């Protein structure tokens, strides 16, 4: 994918208004995880607009976004910076750019597609299996929740799984 094609794809996914970004930094100064990011959300948008595909997709910031949407509430241009993050996550997934964060998202979506609902136990177990260093805090959490009777393996079954499969197949290829 050329750099211009990359820019156009993100614009198509996240909205044409991105082109009007004035680099004011309102988004980054509102961001709850800005202090942990390598590129601020403002910078990430510049990377996209300049077609700097490799840098944008390699940025850890994509995965530090908590989806809190404060950037989106505040942007004076009506840009949705979180939508840019989502577009970049989607491209990473398609291009097989993997990381521990990407694997979490993958497991989450696979579970919806196969069961219709999320079981936190299965989600945590699948994630810990692929990321063994996460196992200890997950176990700790599990013990705390188990002692309060708040662990359930079965989130109930969904009858309309055909419909869910159709939603993934037909709407998931943007």
């Amino acid at each position, binding site marked *: 994918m050329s750099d211009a094609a990359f820019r156009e794809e993100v614009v198509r996914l996240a909205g044409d208004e991105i082109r009007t970004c004035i680099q004011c930094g309102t988004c980054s100064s509102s961001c*709850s*995880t800005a202090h*942990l990011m390598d590129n601020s959300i403002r910078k990430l948008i510049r990377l996209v607009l300049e077609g700097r595909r490799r840098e944008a997709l390699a940025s850890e910031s994509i*995965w*530090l*976004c*908590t*989806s*809190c*949407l*404060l950037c*989106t*509430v505040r942007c004076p241009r009506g840009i949705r910076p979180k*939508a840019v*993050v*989502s577009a970049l*996550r*989607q491209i990473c*997934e398609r291009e097989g750019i993997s990381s*521990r*964060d990407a*694997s*979490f*998202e993958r497991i989450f*979506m696979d*579970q*919806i597609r196969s069961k*219709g*609902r*999320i*079981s*936190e136990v299965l989600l*945590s177990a699948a*994630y810990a299996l692929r*990321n063994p260093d996460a196992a200890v*805090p*997950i176990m*700790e*959490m599990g013990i*705390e*929740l188990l002692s*309060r*009777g*708040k*662990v*359930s393996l*079965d*989130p*109930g079954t*969904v009858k*309309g799984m055909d*419909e*869910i499969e*159709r*939603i*993934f197949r*037909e*709407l*998931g290829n*943007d």
Partner: protein
Amino acid sequence: MTEIAYYPGCVSKATGREYDISTRSVARALGIELIELDDWSCCGATHVPNETLAIGLAARNLTQTELPVMTTCSICYSNLRTAVRRLEDNGLRARVNSVLERKYKGARVMHVVEMLSESLRNRELPIKLSGLRVTPYYGCLLTRPGNGIDSPEHPKVLEDMVRMLGAEPVESPLKMLCCGGPIFMPREDAALESVYHILQSAKRAGADAIMVVCPLCHLMLDAKQGAIERRYGVDLGMPVLYITQLAGIALGLGPEELALEMNSISPLPLLERVYQRMTGD
């Protein structure tokens, strides 16, 4: 009797059980019939980056009923509301409808906060939570991305609710800082740091308890509080109650009906204070 469709969301049977239990109890006490949404499925939370797919998942849930749809989770609420707004676009609506079993024709979405503020207004409560200093924690998605329950910049709906219950709202500066819940599994450190600051700021503000409106916020502030105390070497002991638990107490419901024993930081000592004051000690 008012009928409302209830979308419990995936965590209602697990980490958010006390929210589910207390929501059902409070609705019963208020004479509201909650009808669990037929065959509901996951809304995708914050983990479906493809927006069209996410809207499809939300829309499927909204087509399961003609009634207004109430949810207790701020993430589900934000997703469902976003879907309603985006589906005003006829092109997108046609595309989504082409894969749905029942066609989407518009929907009303509400958060349990709205259900409570509508039905508690002008209602005489048997128990006033007077003397209790409660700081509301908004988190992110109750008010975002906007055009919902209250202003995303200067909300007051939860302070009003605390007052309605007879308690005293305490302003905590970090009441809208994200709890980091959506990234807590891959990014534990980052999430715990945010929660540590949120809890400390509530404590410094002099709150007796924090009131939350989202199961993920609750998980982070309550169930993870022990881990935070150990990691930062602090003693917090800050009870974190769901809005439905606090409302239930004021409605005179018992600890079992509100699943108070399921909270990690026990709210029972606080309750004793409320009861003691009532009996005039």
